[in-house]
């Protein structure tokens, strides 16, 4: 049961990390392989804030979010915007280039060893609930990510911005024709998604391990969430993340040497069976 709990925590973390990528792909049909770099940025800025500047951890989290969002907004307006219309190959090349730069840059500035964030003692350790061991940190992750998911769903379903976003994801041209400023929608969404990734990076440093190779190491997980979950809803990636999280943790526990193998194989089978993802609508692009 603890494993299940851990798996859920891992899954929700993955969701927060990957949902920005899902929206980017669905909205602009843009393959952003550098998404993990924003997560890494969030992790490292939190290291600096909490470890070196003494900022309280729980304050560091929203700051990481803001940092990621700002970084995303700046890069989007200056660089990404020039690549939207280009071919998928160009997008892949561009974002790989960004990853290379990010990885080398972080290595240079912060060194190549794994970084640990000083977690407040309140969040360390575990407690027992009906005989199940619950880690405090993981519980916090579930709470925070759960709240975020609810908030995201609310924004998407019940706000004007949300409906504009859904319209633009559905059909960009028609949305433009209706007067929706797709460029602005995308800029905001990209920034928000990057912020979430950064927050996920900050939260995840403890669980996933933070080092300059983070973007490439976890890229496949983000891609799995996005392709299996589809890009036309929040629920798709959410369910996909939870499944992946549980699957990965269980795999590591029960079949340690083969766990990654199992995950990748399932992914390949899934992609073949349903190239549009498990949750994509029938009329998806």
């Amino acid at each position, binding site marked *: 049961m603890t494993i299940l709990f851990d798996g859920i925590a891992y899954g929700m973390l993955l969701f927060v990390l990957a949902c920005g990528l899902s929206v980017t792909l669905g909205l602009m049909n843009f393959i952003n392989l550098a998404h993990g770099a924003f997560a890494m940025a969030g992790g490292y800025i939190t290291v600096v804030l909490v470890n070196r500047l003494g900022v309280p951890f729980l304050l560091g989290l929203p700051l990481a979010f803001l940092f990621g969002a700002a970084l995303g907004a700046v890069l989007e307006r200056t660089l990404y915007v020039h690549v939207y219309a280009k071919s998928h190959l160009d997008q892949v090349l561009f974002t790989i280039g960004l990853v290379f730069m990010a990885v080398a840059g972080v290595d*240079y500035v912060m060194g190549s060893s794994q970084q640990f964030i000083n977690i407040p003692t309140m969040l360390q350790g575990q407690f027992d609930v009906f005989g199940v061991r619950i880690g405090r940190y993981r519980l916090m992750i579930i709470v925070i990510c759960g709240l975020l998911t609810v908030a995201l769903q609310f924004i998407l379903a019940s706000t004007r911005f949300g409906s504009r976003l859904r319209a633009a994801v559905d059909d960009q041209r028609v949305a433009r024709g209706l007067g929706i400023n797709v460029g602005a929608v995308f800029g905001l969404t990209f920034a928000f998604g990057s912020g979430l990734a950064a927050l996920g990076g900050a939260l995840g440093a403890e669980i996933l391990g933070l080092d300059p190779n983070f973007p490439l190491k976890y890229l496949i997980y983000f891609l799995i969430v996005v392709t299996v979950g589809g890009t036309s809803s929040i629920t798709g990636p959410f369910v996909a993340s939870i499944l992946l999280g549980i699957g990965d943790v269980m795999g590591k526990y029960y079949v340690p040497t083969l766990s990654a193998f199992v995950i990748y194989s399932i992914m390949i089978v899934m*992609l073949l069976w349903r190239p549009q993802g498990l949750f994509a609508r029938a009329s998806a692009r």
Partner: protein
Amino acid sequence: MSDISRPLAAQVTEFLLRRARWSPIEIAFWLVAASTIWLFPARHLILTEICIWALFALSLDLILGYAGIISLGHAAFFGLGAYAAGLIGKYDIIGEPALALVASGLAAAGLGFATSFLVLRGSDLTRLMVTFGISLLLRELANKYSEISGGADGLQGVEIKPLLGAFRFDLYGHTGYAYSLVVLFVLFLLARRVVQSPFGLSLQAIRGNPLRSSAVGIATNWRLVAIYTLSAGYAGVAGALLAQTQAFASLEMFSVERSADVLLILIIGGTGYLYGGIIGALIFRFLQDYLSTLTARYWQFWIGLILIAIVLVGRDRIAGWTTPLRKLADALGRWRPGWRSAAGGKP
């Protein structure tokens, strides 16, 4: 055929045959390449590296430049070829390195054939992920079965017998280089024939317009399977060359970094005209050397920057800068590059 048609027929035939002719620049290039065996003995080790990257990039060009398949996992075949050659050498399964090379290439081609069906379906992103996933899978397998593969330490104790029974693989890499260059040349010749054949033309058609291709009777899937298999075989041979010239194989050969690097090399040199891999490998290796002297460990940063610059400036526009050279080549003997894609960004 009518009287009007005869000169027209001659013109058409001339046009088609001209596409395939060896231009003087090409001949000069290979002569110079061959001469490096004798002229630059001190550089043989780095030249061998370049040959191997060039062959690897050439293999990627076959699927990317000619068939339009974007792969982020081509290192899977490279790594498989490397480990195959390494294991063959270590356990003396095949004594002659050249035969071992062929066997390794076939093994990689086999994997390519098996996985080609996965690559036919889905969007660019799906293909990207499937290819990526396969290379990750192989890496995991090699990691798990470390009794066979040596795991994270790499394959140890590989011994390669003398080539053709006579040429020992020496520390200075002389044999290794001549070997690699010859292999590169032979495989290049084969690739050149294939892309200029009716089969090769059909691949370009499939890349340009798959809908129309099937509407003129082309069984697109089987053609793609064929070129993917060939490409995998070539990548496997490149990996085997590395394993044989260095008597070593490691998990890194399956890595996404290697897949990304070969993609970068091909893009630098240009896709769709077969020489892109070779030119790209030359530029990449010299860049790497130059940048490493500037910034030790962090040269990847500058590579990333160059990649971004290439994309932002536009690969078509960069192709345009080489137009004078291309026009010269054309004037001398009509090698027609096929990579000037129409604006709108096909790879």
